[in-house]
């Protein structure tokens, strides 16, 4: 029998798929853009959920990986469009507009960044971990601002959306389909991870790191691995987000972005497979409805979030599924 959470998850997946199709049918292209945004931000949140939800690592620095993924897309595309190689020595590296090349590069770059930041941050826990991930992301942010080669503070435009073989990425529906499939794949991967031996160790590390060490499994290695996987997903999401907006700027790297990705995860419910996607959807719907009510919609959102933390724990899916967080 299907659990209530599984039913809700299916509903979210179907709803997110239906929205752009309806938007297309009723000639509301804006709806397609919003749905694409939900899919991409949901992907970033799904990544963070691995670190924050399953691993208990409260990272307030995932904007670094999200933004780096974005810059990879922007930088590779700009070099391709200018016919200017990135490097000539020791070997010739040219830009590209192929998503199938951009994504792996984005994943590797953000993964390496997560490895370095994670290895340093995981020397500590608790509040220190939060502050350190935040600080390192800020470092990347300031670097992007002060490094003028790729637009500095002004950011970098991607004049033509990058390409995917067999699809027309400039068609909003096609681009949505790409993002949607990647989101579902990432959620599927999260599911497998959470059920695997590694997931068992990761969940164990969250609950009791000392217990894990006592049975001879290094909590550090387990958590670091999860942090890198988490950063990689955020990086892929960043590359897609850059293509959605056809623009990258330091704001993708800002601490505000980190906070937002975290809000998606908690709003939807940590350790829920579709939690981050539900959270991102809710956030974007709120942004667009509250935004119509008042230009100061962030004030309402802030108050709503405070109320949510104080009075409703377990996130939206937790409330709907009517059950406590599971392991």
């Amino acid at each position: 029998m299907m659990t209530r959470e599984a039913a809700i998850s299916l509903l979210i997946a179907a709803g997110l798929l239906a929205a752009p199709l309806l938007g297309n049918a009723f000639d509301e292209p804006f709806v397609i853009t919003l749905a694409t945004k939900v899919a991409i931000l949901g992907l970033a949140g799904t990544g963070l959920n691995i670190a924050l939800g399953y691993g208990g690592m409260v990272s307030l620095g995932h904007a670094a990986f999200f933004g780096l993924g974005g810059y990879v897309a922007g930088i590779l595309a700009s070099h391709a469009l200018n016919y200017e190689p990135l490097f000539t020595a020791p070997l010739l590296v040219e830009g590209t507009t192929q998503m199938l090349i951009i994504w792996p590069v984005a994943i590797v770059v953000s993964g390496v960044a997560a490895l370095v930041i994670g290895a340093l941050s995981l020397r500590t826990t608790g509040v220190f971990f939060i502050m350190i991930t935040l600080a390192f992301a800020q470092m990347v942010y300031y670097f992007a601002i002060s490094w003028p080669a790729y637009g500095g503070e002004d950011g970098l435009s991607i004049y033509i959306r990058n390409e995917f073989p067999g699809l027309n990425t400039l068609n909003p529906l096609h681009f949505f389909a790409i993002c949607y499939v990647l989101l579902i794949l990432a959620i599927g991967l999260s599911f497998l991870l959470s059920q695997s031996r590694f997931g068992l160790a990761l969940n164990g590390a969250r609950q009791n790191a000392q217990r894990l060490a006592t049975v001879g499994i290094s909590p550090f290695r387990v958590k670091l691995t999860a942090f890198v996987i988490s950063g990689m997903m955020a990086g892929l999401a960043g590359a897609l987000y850059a293509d959605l907006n056809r623009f990258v700027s330091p704001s993708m790297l800002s601490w505000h972005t980190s906070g937002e990705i975290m809000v998606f995860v908690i709003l939807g419910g940590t350790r829920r497979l579709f939690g981050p996607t539900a959270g991102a959807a809710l956030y974007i719907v709120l942004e667009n409805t509250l935004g119509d009510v008042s230009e100061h919609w962030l004030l309402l959102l802030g108050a709503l979030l405070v109320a949510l933390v104080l009075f409703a724990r377990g996130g939206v899916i937790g409330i709907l599924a009517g059950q406590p967080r599971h392991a």
Partner: protein
Amino acid sequence: MTVSLIVEQLLNGLQFGFMLFLMAAGLTLIFGVMGLINLAHGSFYMIGAFACAAVAAATGSYWVGLAASLAAAAAAGALVEVAVIRRLYRRDHLDQVLATFALILVFSEGTRWVFGSFPLYLTVPDFLSGPVALPGGIDYPLFRFAIILIGLVIAGGLFLLIARTRLGIRIRAGESDREMIAALGVDIRKLYTTVFAIGAALAGLAGALVGTIQSVQVGMGEPVLILAFVVIIIGGLGSIVGALVSAILVGLADTLGRFLLPVAFDTFMDSSTANNVGSALASMLIYILMALVLFLRPTGLFGTRAH
């Protein structure tokens, strides 16, 4: 490059360091006593600056404005503590982070609502404007010099408060043993509200002073907040001495790095590249410093407690 230029940068670094200390001291007190991570601490910095700008403009007196910055930030701190923060002490850090992140949205957007999106400017009061002549024939802006002195006085006052007063004893007791202090019959709620308000007031004062030499705008608190985090990470959590030493270290490193690195790179690069590389590196310098401390001494320079 002249000696006076270097001295000026040194003093700028000191001034920056003391302002960071005002922020970091409040954060570390609040964490030490209540075990709370407060992302909204930067909002008190902003509130202090806006209160000072608004009141100074209305009354024509900078000093009334400065007093208002302390009062407004302390009041906002006490109010938030009673309404929201108090319910978070027993929650995990994740809830604290989310709730205080949400409070930033409330404060920033609320301030934007009241004051609009354009920055406000404060004027340096007459008798603190102009330069001060330092030994060696160096001219330095008097107001910045005054900020250093104010920082010094507040740091001293804070140490006295913690070492000598009844409130200080309670703060120290609260840091070492929360149950003990309740058993001693201290009204712990009042203590927490007081500590939170003091932390907020320090941040508010820093905001007003820095707002006077820069500008007063929404969101001005967050970059400073993150720097204050860096200060705490380097200094060690819960240590006021650590916060002071590390704040000055960070203030000096950041200021001198921005000034000296481009010059240093200029000696072996062409000057536009040197400027780019130098300033990019300077913007990352204190984070590199933080990474180094973490690598060598994960508990921070003065931190003893395991986190």
